[in-house]
């Protein structure tokens, strides 16, 4: 009996030792290999997408061919809880060197563990668009505290389907950006049996959100929007109330697709508009839900675009929401291969690699080493608006911690209609103050 107990004891001890040893090896990951090629672990929430994923694979192949000592372990991660996973990875300092990230509040909440690129990009800083660098800087400066290298320029506005305009008896070349013209166009579309506006609001209310962003740009301008960063602009201000009433009017008049609450923006609503349904769609300037997606659906010659529906009293009628950068590559501050990781991030956001991404996805890469196709009329118009009338993106300025709750209140007010306008405004302002 004693022998058996001793044996069990030894086995338990051995198990504990084995678990500890393998645990420490796991924590070290691949980093224990000191000689041989370096393996960079890259996380990417777009890697599983068919078109973008193929582009990234090709970019990786090119990088590895030019840098034989570096192997890229590119891993697809789900976008729905990407930042939660990043937070966990950062907390555990797990095996992650480079990662794709948005340039909005979702990223900045975690930015203390992002590597600062300032000294690494001295030689190429002029090739990146200053507005993109500002979006990638933690302090919104074009030449310091750069923590993300921009892969796409981004903004948002309203697309329309010229085919459906013709069917409704509207002139497709007369852009209905004036609010009254916009409502009149919606009415004509509705009468012709075409859903005037396609929204996707399930989960996160992006349909409402993107429309808000566009309208608020025209009502508040750069200073007003930046005021949301420090509380000098409030949700109780008349401009936000007016924007709210404008969006609500679209719902009240039945211009928004009835099913908007049960279809997600990504990708169902996008696909719906791409398939030729609907008159208007609040889309993006680059990368996804943009001119290329819709052009492939109903012909680029039938894609119309304008920055925002503009109210008669709007102080900034030409405002075009410009995020500066949409997505980009960042490097973990604790990566044991900082040089290689930085090299990879620079490579992916410029030159040949950036062009591969742009050609495949239709994204605008804000880097002067990648010329944009000037023959594309819609793209040229979007770029002109972004460059000449850019205003910050309101959602990039408000505290990141309030966004999901803000969406909840949008749902309650606009979609389920369970709270009043004053309750909605009060709740959002309260939420904003709590997160400021």
């Amino acid at each position: 009996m004693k022998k058996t107990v001793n044996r069990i004891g030894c086995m338990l001890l051995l198990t504990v030792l084995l678990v500890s040893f393998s645990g420490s090896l796991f924590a070290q990951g691949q980093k224990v290999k000191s000689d041989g090629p370096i393996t960079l672990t890259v996380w990417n929430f777009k890697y599983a997408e068919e078109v973008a994923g193929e582009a990234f694979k090709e970019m990786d192949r090119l990088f590895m061919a030019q840098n034989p000592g570096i192997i890229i372990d590119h891993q697809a991660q789900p976008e729905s809880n990407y930042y939660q996973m990043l937070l966990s990875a950062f907390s555990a300092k797990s095996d992650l060197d480079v990662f794709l990230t948005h340039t909005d509040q979702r990223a900045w909440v975690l930015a203390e563990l992002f590597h600062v690129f300032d000294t690494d990009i001295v030689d190429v800083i002029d090739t990146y668009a200053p507005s993109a660098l500002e979006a990638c800087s933690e302090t919104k400066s074009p030449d310091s505290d750069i923590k993300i290298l921009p892969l796409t320029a981004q903004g948002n506005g309203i697309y329309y389907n010229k085919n459906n305009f013709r069917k409704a008896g509207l002139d497709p070349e007369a852009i209905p950006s004036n609010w009254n013209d916009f409502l009149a166009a919606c009415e004509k579309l509705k009468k012709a049996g075409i859903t005037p506006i396609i929204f996707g609001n399930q989960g996160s209310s992006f349909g409402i959100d993107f429309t808000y962003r566009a309208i608020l740009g025209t009502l508040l301008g750069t200073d007003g929007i930046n005021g949301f960063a420090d509380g000098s602009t409030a949700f109780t201000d008349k401009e936000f109330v007016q924007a709210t009433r404008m969006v609500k009017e679209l719902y009240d008049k039945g211009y928004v697709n009835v099913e908007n609450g049960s279809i997600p923006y990504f990708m169902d609503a996008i696909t719906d508009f791409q398939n030729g349904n609907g008159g208007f769609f609040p889309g993006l300037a680059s990368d996804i839900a943009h001119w290329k997606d819709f052009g492939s659906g109903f012909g680029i010659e039938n894609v119309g675009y304008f920055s925002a529906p503009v109210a008669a009293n709007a102080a900034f009628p030409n405002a075009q929401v410009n995020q500066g950068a949409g997505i980009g590559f960042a490097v973990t501050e604790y990566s044991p291969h900082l040089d290689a990781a930085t090299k990879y991030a620079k490579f992916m956001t410029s030159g040949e690699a950036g062009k591969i991404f742009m050609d495949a996805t239709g994204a605008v890469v804000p880097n002067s080493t990648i010329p944009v196709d000037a023959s594309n009329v819609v793209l040229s118009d979007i770029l002109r608006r972004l460059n000449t009338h850019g205003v910050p993106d309101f959602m990039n300025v408000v505290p990141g911690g309030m966004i999901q709750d803000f969406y909840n209140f949008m749902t309650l007010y606009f979609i389920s209609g369970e709270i009043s306008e004053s309750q909605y405004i009060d709740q959002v302002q309260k939420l904003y103050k709590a997160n400021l």
Partner: protein
Amino acid sequence: MNLLKRSKKFRLTQEARDAWILLTPLLLLTVGFLVYPVFSNFYYSLTRWKGLGDPVFIGLENYTRMFQDERFYSSLKNMGILVLYIPLGVGLPLLIANTLRNGLKGWKMYRAMLYLPNILGPVILGTIFSVMLSQVGPITEILRRIGFEKANEFYLLGKSVSAIHTLSFIFVVLMRVGFGCIYFLAAMSTIDQNLYDAARIDGTNKFQDFIHVTIPGIKFSIQFFSVLAFIEVFARMYGIIFTLTGGGPGYATNTLEFAVYKLSFSSYQKGYASAWAVVLFFFCAIIALIQIRLIMKEEMS
């Protein structure tokens, strides 16, 4: 002399030593993965922390904020509604089990059908129902084809009241009915047949058999199943809420458990989320105590 006495007093018997050797790994795991997290959660609930960097001690500020937060009371209300469905979630499988026990043609097929939601699990079930009940889902399409043109305006998950009741019915009743049937059938098989025979001699009908023989005979099983239902409502709903409603519309299907996740991982307020988790911990502790008491009572009887 005293030292010798003391060492004798603390000398373990062979049996106790063996027990300690076998229990130690489990105890270590319990301390590492259960006890430590619970205590550290109490500490984090007194801090401001987003999950990175050092937590900042802020005393009871998170609790003050929580008790002033409408979302907290809305979560409690939602859990109250879910709890109200437990009698139906217990009673329905009990009745079905009794029917099956009394013999029903093709009962094996019914049993398989009833058990299916339990096999699928909360995540798959949530996903299936979110598609089925969608305004662009198959049910809407069928309704439209048979003449209900405005079927897409009806969305069970789109209004607060209908969303919480739909969630409650799916999770507390539908998902548990299969397991409940099997569980109660197994419990009913332990009842002595002589009791039914004796009751028949006294002239009882099937309903009276059910009330006066079956229910008292499986009283402990019913109590235990009810306690399990409470545990599931309080601490195992994350998967179905995430896939079915995401906690919405608004906060209509938010529970304490789901809110802990949202606050912690979507809003990066881990300190504040920990305060919510402390409240959840006390609810779960009360349920666990009731469960332990029931088991002890049964063992004693």
